[in-house]
């Protein structure tokens, strides 16, 4: 009996994320629309969730009154100074761990011991060491961003293609040239993806520190709203934090695209 010919079923495809523009926005808008509808129709009580349009109005008020900037400016400064200190020190120590066996043997256990400590628990200590005002907050964010940066950096240095290093040696390149021209650029992709995690941790610690003692700052603003059970203001603060997260992640993405142009 002659078999009928049929096409070979397709089994490939998938497992390859491609960029779909706007999908993220659609999910956001849809979610907000459902909440808005629910709060207006009454099947979401105003105690459970605030109305998105009220949150938006609160944000607009906040911006008009200039209070937005009063809270945002100190927060941004703290995040910037703290994570700059932490990330710079982290990259430096990470590279030393990656390059020198003694530093590695000496510091990896220390970093492993520091990593799981909830840094916020150390805030009282930092207040004694660095003062009640900005110093302790900088230190907290710096320490919080330091450990993940160290781990990401020495991992990235370990992963630099050894044949490239050997190539450098075979052409008689100086040690410093090999580090600067081969090891550092080779470790950059890993360092940058570690930066995403570090900055996110930095934002979390920023808010925590501001909740524990600050007059101005997004964290203080959220804490104030929370203790008054003012859901609109609380959510306005949360929206600002989320935007901060989105903006920093976007900025790191741009940085990656620019610094890693050589990747396909």
């Amino acid at each position, binding site marked *: 009996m002659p078999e009928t010919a049929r096409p070979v079923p397709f089994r490939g495809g998938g497992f390859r994320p491609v960029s779909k523009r706007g999908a993220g926005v659609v999910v956001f808008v849809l979610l907000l629309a459902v909440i808005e509808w629910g709060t207006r129709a009454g099947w979401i009580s105003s105690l459970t969730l605030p109305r998105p349009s009220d949150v938006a109005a609160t944000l607009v008020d906040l911006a008009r009154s200039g209070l937005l900037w009063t809270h945002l400016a100190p927060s941004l400064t703290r995040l910037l100074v703290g994570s700059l200190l932490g990330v710079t020190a982290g990259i430096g120590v990470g590279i030393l761990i990656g390059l020198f066996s003694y530093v590695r043997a000496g510091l990896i256990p220390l970093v492993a011991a520091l990593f799981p400590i909830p840094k916020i628990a150390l805030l009282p200590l930092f207040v004694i060491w660095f003062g009640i005002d900005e110093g302790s907050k900088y230190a907290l964010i710096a320490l919080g961003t330091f450990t993940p940066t160290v781990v990401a950096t020495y991992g990235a240095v370990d992963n630099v293609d050894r044949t490239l290093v*050997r190539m450098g040696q075979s052409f008689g390149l100086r040690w410093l*040239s090999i580090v600067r021209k081969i090891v550092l650029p080779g470790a950059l992709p890993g360092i940058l993806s570690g930066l995403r995690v570090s900055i996110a941790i930095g934002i979390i610690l920023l808010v925590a520190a501001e909740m524990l003692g600050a007059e101005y700052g997004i964290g203080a603003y959220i804490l104030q709203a929370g203790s008054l059970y003012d859901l609109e203001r609380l959510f306005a603060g949360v929206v600002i934090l989320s935007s901060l997260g989105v903006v920093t992640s976007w900025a790191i993405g741009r940085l990656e695209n620019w610094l*890693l142009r050589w990747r396909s």
Partner: protein
Amino acid sequence: MELTVEKLTHRYGDVPVLQDINLHIPAGEILCVIGPSGCGKSTLLRMLGGLERPDAGQVLQRGSAPADCLNPLTFVFQDFALLPWRSVGGNISLVLEDHGIRGQAADTIICDVLARTKLGDFRDALPRQLSGGMKQRVAIARALAVNPAVMLLDEPLSALDAQTRELLMEDLIALWQRQPFTAVYVTHNLAEAVRLGHRIAVLSRRPGQVREVIEVDIPLSDRAPGDPHLEDLQSRLWQIMKDEAMAADQELLDA
């Protein structure tokens, strides 16, 4: 400059990889080293270039390198070892920068070696834009830029397809004829060995020992693919190597 290997022996932990190797590499000649996989060919080459230290024995260099030589012992690697973040020109200037050669002087050298490897139009291309054969030509151009006294080629064509391999072999022969260089060429491909080697050293399976050194007295330019003399030689080499290769294939890696 010529190299001499004297009683070179090496072990990795408990595993002996090279045993009592004696070789002479005279100036202006290409020595091909062949042997079954895992016989320590690449280790031997790294020792010739000072990238690894033998347990016993030594590698001696005799005579001085040419005056404008920047790096007497220069490698060409199997996987090209190009920096992906540097352009073709940047990869070549990398090996000049440490010698203080920049600007105009570097430019002259880069243009010259790119012309010699037929890459003149690709100076600003990134490695990811190049085919395998072009990447290896860049690596060869980079090696030529330092004007080496001895070229150490570690299976330079093994990562390439057969057609590209043939083209690059012709390129290498042309380069040698233009300016004879000293080279040690490690390969497991017998056809490459008979085409490029003035002498061919056959290593035994691990621990690698020199089984035989065969002279090939046909000039490089007269060797074409399919030449009956070369075919004969190739089957002779295969006879020597066959048992070794079969035995090597049966060995456990960490027995």
